């Protein structure tokens, strides 16, 4: 077997490690070695965004990153959105606004929307559509995805205002 590297990073707040060849893509490490199958493989050509995760504060397509590049990084995947049994506002909003049908694009949409709202807590519809342009959905026509992100944005802004 080719030379392997031990790569260690934080996954949804927990320390994890994996032994990988340099050519191993992050999406395969997450799904096959770390049993985090929430992120999906949709296209293999870096278009669809179903593999989107959050690495060191950036939305990243995990099919186009080498795991060896993630040593020491902080990763958030869809599995990390729920906290203590409570759905994240985005997950709740996708449920309420029917922002998914088959669900295949949904983990990527959620993880991207998470970062989008960090970048811009009060996005317009145009901001959202532009902001999710790296995530393709074949089922919904995006309308309810946009509504879900808007709903979550409102809820998160309200929660932040109450806390302040």
């Amino acid at each position: 077997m080719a030379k392997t590297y031990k790569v260690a990073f934080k996954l949804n707040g927990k320390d994890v490690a994996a032994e990988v060849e340099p050519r191993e893509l992050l999406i395969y490490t997450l799904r096959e070695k770390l049993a985090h199958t929430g992120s999906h493989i949709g296209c293999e050509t870096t278009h669809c965004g179903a593999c989107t995760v959050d690495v060191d504060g950036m939305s990243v397509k995990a099919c186009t990153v080498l795991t060896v590049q993630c040593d020491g990084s902080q990763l958030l995947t869809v599995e990390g959105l729920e906290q203590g049994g409570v759905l994240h506002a985005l997950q709740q909003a996708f449920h309420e606004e029917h922002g998914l049908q088959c669900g295949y694009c949904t983990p990527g949409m959620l993880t991207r929307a998470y970062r989008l709202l960090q970048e811009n807590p009060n996005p317009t519809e145009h901001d959202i559509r532009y902001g999710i342009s790296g995530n393709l959905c074949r089922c919904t026509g995006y309308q309810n995805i946009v509504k879900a992100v808007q709903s979550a944005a409102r809820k998160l802004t309200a929660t932040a205002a109450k806390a302040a």
Partner: protein
Amino acid sequence: MIPAGFDYHAPRTLADAIKLLGDLGPDARLLAGGHSLLPMMKLRFAEPAHLVDLGKIPELRGIAQVGNEIHIGAMTTEHDLLRSALLAEKVPLLVEGTSWIADPQVRYKGTIGGDISHGDPGNDHPALMLALDASFALKGPRGERVVKADGYFLGLYSTLLEPGEILTQIRIPLPAAGTGWSYQKLKRKTGDFATAATAVLLQMKGNSVAKVGIGLTNLAPTALKARAAEDYLVGKAIDERALTEAARLAMSICDPMQDQRGDAAYKTAMCGEMTRRALAAAHARASKS
């Protein structure tokens, strides 16, 4: 869909990267953002034996004004270009062009240096660099040289970059105050490569063109500088006749590939339309004093 095997190197300094490239020889390739190279490797269109990751070299990132130029480190990401207040103020053409590159995820990793060096005619930065009359700092074992963007792009995946050299910095002369600008990109969807795109930087003196730079994306094996259109426009007013003739001159140098975005005749016609729109939009933004 899995790359062939390779050895991975992540030097911490530019000097180490240059030495490493020299030691490893022609089977080594540089890894910048990886969003042109890794997709090729996943399809096995590229099978380098070594990847030299430039991601851990801090001196390759950053955006600064140095005298009357903007200097951008080659590993600066598209995302960072979009967020730069300096670029928004001083080189807005670059910000507008960058906003049409791919999508948010790709822009978090993709770099301006990688986009330029890869030699893909579909990439957007080369035409922007031609319109901006930019230069590139190239560093290798024999030292540094600075070359103009005009003449840098030789062919499909082919640039002036020699084996063992690294594009380290992009240098853009500050456009004069009142310069107009526009990047018009026709695409099947937001995030797609251009069906046809035109970058224009336009300086007026009164009602006539003082200086104009026109770059064309994805209409030939490399980005093109629409030199004849530029020369024609100097001294002219931007009226219907000038737009039509400039568009015709831009179209006359196009040699696009037929693909799922259209056949050659269609793409060439769209070059004309994008050139027309970019000139009109740049003219609207330009100050006429």
